[in-house]
């Protein structure tokens, strides 16, 4: 009895956490790092000072999330809407185990046993430079020497390397290990969380189909790295890159939010992309996706309205 209550509580909490909130709150936590990065870039704050400031800010954000969740849960008065995850796991343990086994293999072989595919990427150099100089973009990250011509401002304001710098400084983990090993693992997990949300959206209350969908997603990722520009190859060989986070987390999540008309998520993804990926002076893919979906929705509504009008005209008595 006690165990089942604990399991149910755990399930409700996990359902809450491993959902939209996890993605959106991670973006907000990244936003804090982005603000600190801008403060370091334009205000001349040192990296170590920013790292000290990051801890209370992140803790404050987490406390705020916890309090707001607690309030909402009390307001809901625990409506008792039992999820089917636990019963689904009990019913179909084979699918769950097969999926977890595949993901574990992907993490071990792709995230931990391959040299990083650093072609076209300077994240590692940038983080090492930030750590060594204790400041941002005071020297050229490629050489460690002073800039001769400079660097585009659009490139400088990207906060992802600074987030990795803060994490490396705070955890004392070697930045190379953190960037090329630990972060890709989290990106992979987050990508599966997003596809898990899609599974829940596409097959509501059908746990078996949700797991089969995730299993196929894992297969597509595994066998889909046939070109260097696919989301699979980015995910399995360049998980620390902003482009990967965009392709495997932000774009699918934003599309899901658009389908669900959850616009806060879309806005967060647009902002996250602008701060993670060098879109140069373009507005990014998420905004383009949002614009296309909005247009499709608009024309779809118009088309349905016209159909309804025609139907009413054609059958006045109905």
């Amino acid at each position, binding site marked *: 009895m006690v165990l089942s209550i604990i399991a149910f509580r755990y399930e409700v909490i996990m359902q809450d956490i491993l959902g939209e909130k996890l993605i959106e709150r991670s973006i907000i936590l990244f936003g804090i790092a982005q603000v600190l990065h801008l403060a370091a870039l334009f205000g001349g704050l040192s990296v170590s000072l920013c790292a000290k400031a990051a801890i209370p800010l992140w803790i404050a954000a987490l406390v705020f999330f916890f309090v707001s969740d607690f309030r909402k849960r009390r307001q809901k008065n625990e409506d008792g809407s039992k999820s089917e995850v636990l019963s689904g796991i009990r019913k179909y343990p084979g699918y769950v185990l097969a999926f977890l086994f595949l993901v574990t293999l992907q993490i071990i072989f792709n995230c931990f046993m391959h040299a990083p*595919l650093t072609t076209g990427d300077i994240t590692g150099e940038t983080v090492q430079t930030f750590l060594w100089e204790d400041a941002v973009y005071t020297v050229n990250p*490629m050489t460690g020497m002073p800039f001769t011509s400079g660097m585009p401002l659009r490139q400088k304001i990207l906060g992802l390397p600074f987030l990795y710098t803060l994490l490396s400084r705070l955890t004392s983990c070697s930045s190379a290990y953190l960037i090329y090993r630990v972060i890709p693992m989290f990106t992979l997990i987050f990508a599966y969380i997003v596809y898990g949300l899609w599974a829940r959206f596409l097959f509501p209350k059908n746990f078996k189909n949700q797991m*089969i969908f995730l299993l*196929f997603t894992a297969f597509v990722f595994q066998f889909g790295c046939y*070109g260097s520009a696919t989301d699979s190859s980015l995910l399995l060989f360049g998980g620390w890159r902003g482009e990967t986070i965009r392709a495997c987390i932000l774009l699918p999540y934003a599309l899901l939010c658009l389908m669900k008309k959850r616009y806060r998520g879309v806005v967060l993804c647009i902002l996250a992309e602008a701060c993670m990926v060098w879109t140069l002076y373009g507005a990014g893919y998420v905004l*383009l*996706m949002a614009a296309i979906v909005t247009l499709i929705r608009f024309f779809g509504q118009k088309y349905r309205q016209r159909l309804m009008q025609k139907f009413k005209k054609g059958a006045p008595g109905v």
Partner: protein
Amino acid sequence: MRNLLQSMWDGFGLMKGSGQFLVLFLITVFILLFYKKSEIRELKWYSAVLLLLLLCPFTAKLLLLYQTAYYGYADLWLLLPVTLLIAYMLTITLPVCLNDIPVLKKMTESGKRSLAEVICIFMMMVLLFLCGTMKLAEEKTQRTDYGDVFPAETEEVLHRLPLAEGETLTVLAPDEIAGYLRSCDGRILLPYGRFLWEEELNAYTYDTYAADVKEMHDWVNGTLIGMDEIEISENYLSICTSRDFHILIFEKERLQKGSLSEALDKQDSYRYFDETEHYVIYRLYRSE
């Protein structure tokens, strides 16, 4: 127009690679549009519209302009939910297969539905395997030991460098070593960045290098024309001394050829420091 079509074709090739997932995706969109009455109306219309926008040269050009032409045409294909729709299509095809394939139907009817499902999933996995590839991993990256980040030889060179606390070290090394050095340690300085040989990185910084730096890069990598002459190596070694490059790394194979090792023997600024299986490390010693 011809250039645009050519770049589109190249980009499509990059996206397609040696896999056929795009064909699967096209079939998926086609089936979802015309045969499957689905609740995911907007998703399938989004996929179809975007596919058309990407395939039409004029709209593709507009999209390329939208992404400020820095990223290639292949990158635009990331907008398509390929993984999502293929996984969705396979999932909804599973019950259809169980009903329509006689062997599987028989198994389902005789109470072995789970086994039939597993067989069907396995068949679909084989289909995905045949349409995709696992080759990229072997071609693009090197395997590393568990716990290591960089290839074994690079890790070994990195561990042998005399890095002291609070001090920097300027290193001139072949590309396969130099490419990882600054990712490993911020104390290591390089005379030129990776974008000297990685063209696509040029846009990251506006820095440019003089012709002599390019020649130095070619010399240390063993691709400079006429580098077999002792005078050339002597000249570059004296440049390295005057510019205070603390460490020089050469391929062992190159040193065995003669002219470079002769030039190294003739000077006393750089002395042998350490070596790995394929590389030899020289360190700058000041005579004062």
